[in-house]
C-alpha cells in the first residue's frame, strides 16, 4: 500500500518520534511512502541549526538520515516554514534574509503537495495533531 504521512507537531513533541517509528515500520512492512509532509510546527524539523545536549536524541537528525537513506519525498509547507523562520537558500535570497537554515533532503513547497499525496495514497496518516 501507499502511505501519505503528515506531521504537525514540532521536534520537541513525542509525535515527531512516533511518526518516524511509524514511517520506518511502513517501509519495513513492504509498503511505500509516497510523500512525507511537514506542516505547522513540524517545519522546525527541517532546520539544521538545532543543537541537542549529548545525552538527548536528535530527532531532526534521525529524520534527515531516514529520508536520505530511503530517498523519500519530504515536503515542508513553505507558508508555515516562512512564518516560522525555516528557509532554504532560495527563500533566504528571495526574502533578503541573512542566511538559510534548511536544505536537502527537505523540499519547501505548497499545501497542494499534501493534497496531492493524499489523493495518490491508499492511506493518509497524520501525527502530532
Amino acid at each position, binding site marked *: 500500500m501507499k502511505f501519505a504521512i503528515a506531521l504537525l507537531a514540532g521536534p520537541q513533541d513525542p509525535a515527531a518520534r512516533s511518526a518516524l*517509528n511509524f514511517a520506518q515500520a511502513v517501509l519495513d512492512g513492504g509498503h511505500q511512502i509516497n510523500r512525507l509532509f511537514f506542516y505547522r510546527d513540524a517545519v522546525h524539523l527541517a532546520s539544521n541549526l538545532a543543537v541537542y545536549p549529548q545525552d538527548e536524541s536528535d530527532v531532526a537528525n534521525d529524520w534527515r538520515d531516514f529520508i536520505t537513506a530511503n530517498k523519500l519525498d519530504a515536503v515542508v509547507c513553505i507558508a508555515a516554514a516562512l512564518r516560522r523562520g525555516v528557509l532554504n537558500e532560495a527563500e533566504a535570497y528571495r526574502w533578503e534574509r541573512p542566511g538559510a537554515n534548511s536544505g536537502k533532503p527537505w523540499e519547501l513547497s505548497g499545501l497542494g503537495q499534501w493534497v496531492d499525496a493524499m489523493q495518490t495514497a491508499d*492511506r493518509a496518516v497524520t501525527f502530532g495533531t
Partner: protein
Amino acid sequence: MLHILRHTPQDTSRFASSLRVMGPKQGLLLIEDGVYALLPRTTALSALQLLPASVRLYALETDVIARGLAMDDVPKRVTLVDYPTFVQLCTQYDKVLSW
C-alpha cells in the same frame, strides 16, 4: 475506520469528542499520552469499557511501558501492539483519523 488518540483523556476535549463520534466496528488506537486512558479506576477507562463490543481497542505497547503504566492493569479487551502491527491496522481499516 481507525481512530488514533494521542492526548490525555483528562486534559483536553479530544478524548470525549472521539468517543462521541465513534461508530460500530471501528477501531481505537491509543498512542503517546493517549495511553493514560488505560489508568485503572478512571472515568476514561470506564468510558472505553462501555464502547460497543464491536469497537476494537488497541494501545501502543512502547508508549504504555514508557509512561510507567502497569501491564497487569491493561484490560483484556485492549490489544497491545508494536509499530509493525500499527501499520497493519492502518491497512486493515479503510481510513485513519488522528485526534
